[in-house]
């Protein structure tokens, strides 16, 4: 490098040779190499990393990255009916506008003085989520819904002093895998059977398995497989009768029309905020929430940051960390689980989303989604050989069974793909007992024309 033009990258101002020299002189060092004196020679990396580039000009860089990204085909270019935990909802422009603001995008761990706005925005997020789920405490978001579920179960275990959780066999396999991993070795996970006609939890099996060992009875509503668990109050009652907590995983966007879980006995509500204003981002738009009543025994068990409100001597609104001493930031391994960098920006965005929708918007949206979904279910069920797997109400997802068509889901999806449609999630590997079944998702973005196009493509696929 020495005999060439000095490499002053736009991201590294002090590469300017004169500046470097001046700084070294101030330090009293001869060469930058001297500053690495702590690293012994034997640990020095001598080779080349073989990393391509540099693409020094932004123009080249952008061209290069764009050229790779343009190989992707989006859910705008294709008509998508994929859901399964990541959903295509409309993202209002104001959501993007706010989460791309440099102030929010590039802030990090400041204090509630100079980052007052960040604390307030996240407090408001907690507050609006609280209205939606009808609880008094909501955390600053954790990584994703799966993490929120896993932590909710661990919280239930600490609160009850018990070491077993009961979960429905119909739940998301991804989420279950995260929970199992995260709850080991402290909590045993046992699965509950379901009613093959409706998909709903088998209450008999629940009663058999609920015991004095049970910390939590966990269920999803709507479930991973789309149906609404209509007997939430009975499930919660069984949980409570055995001294366990009722933990309900919800899709928050359903709560304009579906009853909030505390109405049917939930002690802890958790879920994923991706539907509330986050793009799918190839699965990168997730954030998890946990909500409980405002009781010390619950609050003290959260691992997450909890931002609270107060007033100061001047009468200003001020914000701060509630019960900080419970966190690993304060007391390391003696804290509740651990906390770190999770998904705060998505929390702020979900707050913006809920403020935009308001009480009427969230209800109207829920209605629209249910109408479109029912229309799709009805039309799809009318296709010869195709049937709906479960006779239970759905919110936005439902299981379609193709056994009567002689086609596999893979074959059906390949045929749809040729017509630029992403068919539903193939369930045949995760739920072999459902035969050739797929999980379809319909939201407010799907028009009648979109659904009709799907139906006609399905008709062609099963011919």
């Amino acid at each position, binding site marked *: 490098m020495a005999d060439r033009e000095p490499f002053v990258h736009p*991201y590294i101002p002090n590469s300017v040779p004169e500046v470097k020299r*001046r700084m070294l002189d101030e*330090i009293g060092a001869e060469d930058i190499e001297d500053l690495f*004196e702590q*690293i012994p020679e*034997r640990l020095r990396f001598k080779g080349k990393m073989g*990393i391509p580039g*540099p693409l020094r000009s*932004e123009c080249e*860089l952008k061209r290069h990255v764009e050229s*790779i*990204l343009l190989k992707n085909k*989006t859910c705008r270019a294709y008509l998508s009916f*994929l859901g399964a935990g*990541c959903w295509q909802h409309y993202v209002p422009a*104001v959501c993007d506008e706010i989460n*791309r*603001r440099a*102030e929010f*995008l590039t802030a*990090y761990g*400041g204090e509630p*003085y100079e980052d007052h706005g960040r604390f*307030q*925005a996240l407090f*408001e997020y*907690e*507050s*609006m989520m*609280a*209205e939606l789920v009808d609880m008094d405490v909501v955390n600053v978001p954790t*990584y994703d819904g799966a*993490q929120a579920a896993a932590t909710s179960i*661990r919280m239930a275990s600490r609160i009850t002093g018990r070491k077993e959780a009961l979960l429905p066999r119909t739940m998301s396999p991804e989420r279950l895998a*995260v929970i199992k*991993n995260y709850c080991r070795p402290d909590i045993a996970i046992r699965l509950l059977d379901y009613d093959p006609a409706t998909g709903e939890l088998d209450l008999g099996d629940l009663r058999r398995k609920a015991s004095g060992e049970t910390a939590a009875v966990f269920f999803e509503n709507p479930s991973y497989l789309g149906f609404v668990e209509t007997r939430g*109050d009975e499930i919660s009652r069984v949980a409570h009768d055995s001294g366990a907590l009722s933990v309900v995983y919800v899709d928050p966007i359903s709560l304009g*029309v579906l009853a909030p879980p505390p109405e049917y006995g939930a002690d802890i509500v958790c879920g994923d905020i991706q539907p509330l204003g986050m793009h*799918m*981002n*190839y699965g*990168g738009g997730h954030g998890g929430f946990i909500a409980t009543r405002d009781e010390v025994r619950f609050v003290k068990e959260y691992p997450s940051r909890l931002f609270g409100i107060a007033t100061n001597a001047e*009468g*200003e609104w001020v914000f*701060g960390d*509630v*019960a*900080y001493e419970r966190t690993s930031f304060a007391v390391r*391994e003696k804290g509740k689980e*651990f906390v770190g*960098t*999770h998904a705060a920006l*998505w929390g702020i965005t979900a707050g*913006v989303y809920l403020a*935009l929708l308001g009480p*009427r918007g969230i209800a109207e949206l829920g209605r629209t989604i249910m*109408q479109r979904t029912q*229309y799709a279910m009805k039309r799809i069920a009318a296709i010869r050989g195709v049937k709906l797997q479960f006779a239970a*109400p759905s919110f936005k997802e439902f299981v379609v069974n193709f056994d009567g068509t002689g086609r596999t889901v893979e074959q059906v999806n390949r045929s749809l*793909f040729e017509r630029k449609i992403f068919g539903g999630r193939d369930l045949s590997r995760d739920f072999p007992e459902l035969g050739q079944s797929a999980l379809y998702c319909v939201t407010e973005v799907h028009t009648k024309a979109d659904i009709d196009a799907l139906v006609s493509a399905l008709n062609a696929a099963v011919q």
Partner: protein
Amino acid sequence: MRETRPERDETDVKKGDRDVLRRFHEAKWDEPVIFELSTAGERGVLPPEVEKEIADEVGDGVSSLPESMRRKRPPALPELSQARVLRHYLRLSQETLGADLNVDVGQGTCTMKYSPKVNDQLAGMPEITELHPLQDEATVQGILEIMYNLDLFMREISGMDQFSLQPGGGSQAMANRACMIRAYHESRGDKNRDEMLTTIFSHPSDAAAAAVAGFKVITVPPGKNGYPDLEAFEKAISDRTAGLMITNPEDTGIFNPDIDRVTRMVHDAGGLCAYDQANANGMLGITRAREAGFDMCFFNLHKSFSTPHGCGGPASAALGVSRELARFLPVPIVSFDGRKYYLDYDRPDSIGKVRTWYGVPPVHLKAYSWIVALGDEGLKEVARIAVLNNNYVMKKVLEMPGASAPYGRGRYRLEQVRYSWERLRELTGVTTDDIQRRAFDFGVHYWTSHHPFVVPEPMTVEPTESYSKAELDEFLNILRHIVHEAQMEPEKVRNAPYNSVVRRIPSAPFDDPDRWAITWRAYLKKQRRERAPGGH
């Protein structure tokens, strides 16, 4: 509404000082809580209504739900017109000190480097935002190519053999590593290893995540150099040792030169060594996990690799392992068969999943773009300049009265330093918390340390490669000014801030169950209770 008239501090900056000290005041909108802005009937966005044919065919949709499952009362969300929502949040954004706005070297350990705008633009393209994780692989070849290549880059930078990009942040990577260490010992039928070693200057999650995974945490105490000496490790290592989770350099900026000996000792005892590389910014291309003998490592892409911190995520960690441990990585792994990229789930020994899907791809994309913008030499220059900047700042800070940098006196540091103002406190009564609040009056962040405060009156500064000498001088001038104030008028520092968004925040309400309010509805309830006869 409440009335507030905080005094503006006008005396700080005399005429002629302007070059060295900014007459700063943060935006203060006195913005109400959003619920206070609600006007019944206002609307922010309208959801689409269904076509008449659909309504005719299925009715209102919600009647399919049993009565007990229908929401009776709408959620008490605020009602605001669209522009009011926008203005409210823009005001809150202005009351937030983003890294883009300040000389953000005061948030030590956070590596607040510049996050190039072009990468945000790229990550905003529909070709990434509008991708569903279950799309046919043929339609996501672009993003898979980026994730695969990022894995290859990380291998080069660390010397490890394979990476997973699944963890959504450093702490989740730490949890992952603990799971893999557990899986490794289980796979060998080795059931007696239940102790995880770490050090006090490693991130709290190194200890806490290990505890969640079921390990007993052994914190090896630091010696006079700031890191534990070999004897201390010797004492802590036993046949119960499952592994070591350690940062190097630790948050002191001091590199443990015996690290390869430590990893050998742990290996000899049958344990695994996991490297927390949150502090990697001063080492890119200089020294690697492999040469130091580690079996695993992880990088925070939102730190060393420039992706914006987003008020605390979404973030991403790249988790790397040696060939022997690759089979335990979470599924799926992004692979390449010579023709196409694909998601490999066929990994029977995998620990399974720690996070939904594949991590946070927009963050992967930004890190990828940053790395190719710099190339091999550029990455090394990042490390060199980050270390140069840090030692320059250290030289200048240590010239200030009352400042010290405990451990390793007279030695250069890598990318950050944990300073102590203990002497200044002894002289003036001014604490690091006071200095912190005063720093906000000049438009910069200031961070003390994780707990416990092993270094008394700590301040952690990490200049990174992103700031010019002039900017570093500005930060130093602020510190110098505050130290001067501490000596001349300590009360002024103690009563700060004056020019931040709010005045002093009391801590008591946040620790008192009768007063804490984590949501607006909880606040209103507690207020009502307080006002009620016989209330608190």
